[in-house]
């Protein structure tokens, strides 16, 4: 198959994926999104003959626009722009999970510091304040007191970008020193790991210690439902254990749409890039079947 990889920097993740695609004999077109222009009906990006474009944009804004344009041109793209739109925004993410009855931390959004303060006070201390757009644990605040809340809200209100005036307040989940990252393709888990740290933020990007994790039935089901809630695709689904490591109860706090997987490759025995290529091959085959069905239907109705 002919695969476009949309990127703005080749991280270890992209390099592993490129190697796996080439090892499998697939033709790869690297597309640096920074060099391209996207018109209403056409683009400078070389996408005409591609079977699929994989969005690996590091920048969320570029990811959202580029995938939307590609879909408009009829270019198959994963993940779909609808999925990206939900996953890129924590508020939309929370709404989608809640709408699908997937357990997720209690959350409120407020638009002024006064309303945000009321939300924080209603949750009590500690609680969590997050930017609606962002990753790797950046600008996340665990709020332990009213005076800390006042200071953080004042700082956020003066940061400048309007998104910092969308105050996303969440209950603090007392996780057992770790959370769980699952890489899933259309809801089917590829690999899972825990990320542990003494700090309340356990992201691998923050230095959280990783270890392979065996998903139980409850977690597997939640991963499938969380994936479906945001429209499926290749996703990084983050869970926290509620009530301790043996409770078997989980809450899903986030679903990521341009998921990094190098840490999973190191923490588990799974050949993650190869499994991603497996999924891409199946996805392209499904696109082809769908096109053939459309043609058959057209012939019948003509």
């Amino acid at each position, binding site marked *: 198959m002919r695969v476009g990889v949309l990127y703005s920097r080749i991280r270890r993740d992209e390099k592993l994926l490129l190697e796996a695609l080439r090892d499998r004999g697939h033709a790869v077109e690297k597309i640096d999104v920074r060099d391209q222009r996207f018109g209403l009906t056409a683009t400078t990006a070389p996408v005409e003959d591609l079977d699929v474009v994989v969005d690996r944009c590091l920048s969320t804004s570029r990811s959202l626009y580029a995938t939307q344009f590609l879909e408009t041109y009829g270019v198959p793209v994963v993940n779909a722009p609808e999925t990206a739109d939900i996953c890129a925004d924590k508020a939309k993410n929370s709404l989608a999970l809640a709408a699908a009855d997937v357990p997720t931390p209690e959350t409120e959004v407020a638009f002024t510091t006064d309303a945000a303060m009321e939300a924080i006070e209603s949750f009590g201390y500690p609680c969590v304040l997050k930017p609606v*757009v962002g990753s790797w644990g950046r600008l996340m605040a665990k709020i332990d007191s009213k005076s800390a809340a006042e200071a953080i809200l004042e700082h956020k209100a003066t940061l400048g970008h309007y998104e910092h005036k969308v105050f996303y307040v969440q209950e603090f989940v007392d996780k057992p020193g770790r959370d769980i990252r699952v890489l899933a393709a259309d809801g089917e888990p590829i690999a899972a790991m825990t990320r542990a740290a003494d700090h309340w933020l356990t992201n691998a990007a923050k230095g959280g210690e990783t270890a392979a994790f065996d998903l139980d039935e409850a977690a597997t089901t939640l991963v499938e439902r969380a994936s479906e809630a945001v429209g499926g695709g290749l996703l990084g689904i983050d869970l926290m254990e509620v009530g301790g490591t043996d409770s078997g109860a989980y809450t899903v706090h986030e679903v990521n749409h341009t998921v990094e997987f190098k840490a999973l490759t190191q923490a588990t025995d799974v050949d993650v890039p190869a499994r991603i290529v497996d999924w891409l091959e199946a996805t392209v085959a499904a696109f082809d079947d769908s096109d053939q069905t459309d043609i058959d239907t057209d012939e019948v109705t003509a």
Partner: protein
Amino acid sequence: MFLATRVVCTMTSETDPVLAEDPITGEEIELPADVEVGEIIDSPVTGTELEVISLDPVTLEEAPELEEDWGE
């Protein structure tokens, strides 16, 4: 303000490590033989992130700084 600095070197063969000049310090650094355009390399001299701009000839540039919407 970000000022791009480019340094050009030449590749030898497809299996040999690629030698290139660190655009910050001017020191010679070794890149993996399978280096990709767009790849980010941590400078072994300063730890600065460097981006591979081209392969033939090999051109390195100081990588763009982290932006607020970067991530997963």
